[in-house]
């Protein structure tokens, strides 16, 4: 006889944001199927509506500050960290869709499935931010990746897009191999995949005696493999080689989405793994991450320095920013969580904005996003130039922009944690970075135009750029409300705690 099946208590509120976005995406797929004509803008607007609904649902189910809910055998947790992250991710997805709607039809690659795929990817990101079980982390990473493989290769007649898709796929699958093998070793060591239980296991087994117990050793090696898997996803040097190629080849809105969304979600999952499950191993992962962060900041920014191609420059700059976010992760537990969220939001606004400006200048069939296009932009389109300048300043971390406070909080947290060397390296690499960001500004304001460039404006792009500029400046001048928001977003450290 089959065993009695008792379904554990389910709290739908915990997965409500995810559920809403998946349901919306699925229904949207079918709605799109029956939509007449070739025009797919309506699907895009419906997807935006779906994101809005999800945001409302997220706000409706958000837990009281300091509390958390778990469900599905403690596999997912809804804490204020997850809620804030979900809102940021939804904002990123909304920006990506807003800048895609006209982009797709302009470049003649319009297919209705694009928008549900973005929604599915966003759902995967939300899942990553909320899961407290390694198998869910794996599934979240895969959901996100499989969607992005397709989206990367979405620019059909363009060779480079398909190449980018294949490269991303091969490296992504390779990374997934590391991730799952690491998870297997952790399971072998701890006998469970629950992050809280792994943490408890490590605490008890390490407390027993002076000898290093074999189970804990397995968890350590497994944790290292999981870290390698994540390093691919968040493109830390030396696992970053795919980043510029993939960003350059993929449709620009997808590159924007990937550069912020994937990183944010993967970092959030890594954060949870590191401080919930592997906290007893802090002495091991702290130096490793420190070295990776240093390498990433230096290499990413130096490589960006040599790029004549704006899209690749932004890709390398995103590698560099991954380094700064890593510092935020390392100091998690003290102020790392807040600095991570603040940095993510500031980076998201500036980066999405910069990509949106790039899209306005991208012409049909054009594949070179040369810095030359920006030369003399100030004389022709002063508002666009000012917007781009704002984003560049924010990315460089110059006050009074949100980017400044992002970097400031990260460095302050690291300083407080005693990571003086990291702060030093961070400031040094920021100085290098400032050079190439400022170079773009110089060309916009000082140089004569190299060639005729006619930007394309449309509602989605204008609104995105507008919101990004306003957000960057407002949070740069008045960071207090945002700081209080992220300060309340603490990560749940215990079951139901």
């Amino acid at each position, binding site marked *: 006889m*089959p*065993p*009695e*099946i*008792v*379904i*554990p208590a*389910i709290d739908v509120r915990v*997965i409500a944001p995810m559920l809403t976005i*998946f349901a919306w995406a*699925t229904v949207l*797929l079918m709605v799109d199927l029956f939509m007449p004509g070739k025009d797919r803008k309506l699907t895009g607007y419906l997807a935006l509506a779906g994101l809005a609904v999800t945001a409302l649902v997220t706000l409706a189910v958000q837990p009281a500050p300091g509390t958390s809910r778990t469900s*599905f*055998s403690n*596999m*997912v947790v809804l804490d204020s960290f997850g809620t804030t992250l979900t809102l940021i991710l939804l904002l990123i997805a909304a920006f990506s869709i807003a800048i895609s709607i006209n982009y797709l039809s302009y470049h003649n*690659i319009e*297919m209705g*499935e694009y928008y*549900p*795929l973005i929604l*599915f990817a966003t*759902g995967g990101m939300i*899942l990553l931010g909320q899961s407290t*079980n390694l*198998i*869910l982390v794996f*599934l*979240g990473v*895969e*959901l996100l990746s*499989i*969607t992005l*493989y*397709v989206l990367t*290769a*979405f620019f*059909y*007649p*363009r*060779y480079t897009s398909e190449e980018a898709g294949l490269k991303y796929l091969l490296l992504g699958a390779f990374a997934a191999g590391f991730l799952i093998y690491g998870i297997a*070793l952790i399971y*072998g*060591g701890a006998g469970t995949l629950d992050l809280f239980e792994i943490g408890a296991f490590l605490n008890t087994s390490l407390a027993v005696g002076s000898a290093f117990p*074999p*189970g804990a*050793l*397995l968890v350590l*090696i497994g944790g290292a493999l999981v870290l390698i898997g994540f390093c691919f996803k968040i493109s830390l040097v*030396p696992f970053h*080689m795919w980043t*510029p190629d993939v960003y350059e080849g993929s449709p620009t809105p997808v590159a924007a989405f990937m550069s912020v969304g994937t990183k944010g979600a993967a970092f959030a999952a890594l954060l949870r793994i590191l401080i919930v499950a592997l906290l007893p191993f802090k002495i091991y992962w702290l130096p490793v991450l420190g070295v990776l962060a240093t390498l990433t900041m230096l290499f990413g920014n*130096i*490589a960006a320095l*040599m*790029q*004549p191609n704006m899209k690749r420059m932004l890709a390398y700059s995103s590698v560099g920013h991954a380094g700064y976010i890593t510092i935020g992760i390392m100091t998690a537990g003290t102020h790392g969580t807040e600095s991570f969220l603040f940095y993510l939001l500031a980076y998201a606004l500036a980066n999405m904005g910069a990509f949106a400006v790039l899209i306005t200048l991208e012409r049909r*069939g054009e*594949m*070179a996003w040369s810095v030359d296009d920006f030369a003399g932009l100030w004389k022709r389109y002063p508002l666009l130039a000012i917007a781009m300048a704002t984003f560049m300043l924010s990315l460089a971390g110059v006050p009074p922009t949100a980017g400044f406070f992002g970097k400031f909080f990260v460095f302050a947290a690291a300083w407080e944690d005693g990571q003086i060397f990291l702060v030093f390296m961070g400031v040094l690499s920021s100085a290098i970075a400032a050079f190439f960001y400022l170079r773009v500004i110089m060309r916009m304001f000082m140089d004569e135009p190299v060639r005729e460039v006619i930007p394309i404006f449309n509602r989605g792009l204008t609104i995105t750029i507008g919101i990004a500029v306003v957000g960057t400046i407002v949070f740069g001048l008045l960071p207090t409300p945002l700081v209080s928001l992220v300060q309340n977003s603490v990560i749940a450290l215990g079951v139901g705690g």
Partner: protein
Amino acid sequence: MSFELFMFLVTAAIALAGGVGMIVARNTVHSALFLLLNFFAIAVLFLLLHSPFLFAIQLTIYAGAIMVLFLFVVMLLGVESIEDRTKDRLAGQLWLSVVLTLILMVQAITITLLAEPAESQAQNTALLDQLADPALIGATLFTTYLLPFQITGVILLVGIVGVVVLHQRAHLYGPLSETEREFAEQYAAERTASGQPAEQAS
């Protein structure tokens, strides 16, 4: 030597032979067949580990679906021996990978020698027989692992949509036009000419 150990050694040897063969074989179809051999061996190992359910699943999905798909694509594209080994500019990478692999092997042996927990259940045959029941896997899947199970459904849906999208575009837009092809080549030439030294090293 017990019968079980004998079986294990033979199967493990086959599995390793399959893995090595896959890497060494020049012909992609042969690679696929070696991998298939490896999958069969792993299925048998699942059986030795008291998991008949996974034995059947491994054969049905890995051997019966995934590898057939691989073979199908190789045959359809006719890319059995497309690899060009003459331009061996990757000798350095090869050595690097061999070294890396050796390090990993050493690591593997370390894990194995160190990690034998005392409280192993591997001898508890009564418990293992209980765990070999496919109904128990089903029950676990629908209770404890309910959410991952549903997410798997979403992943499969995304996979289907993705494949249809990738295939459909060719139908909607047709193959690359001549100008697009030319443009791409010209673009590539320009890029090579401009030369971007920084990242070649990576």
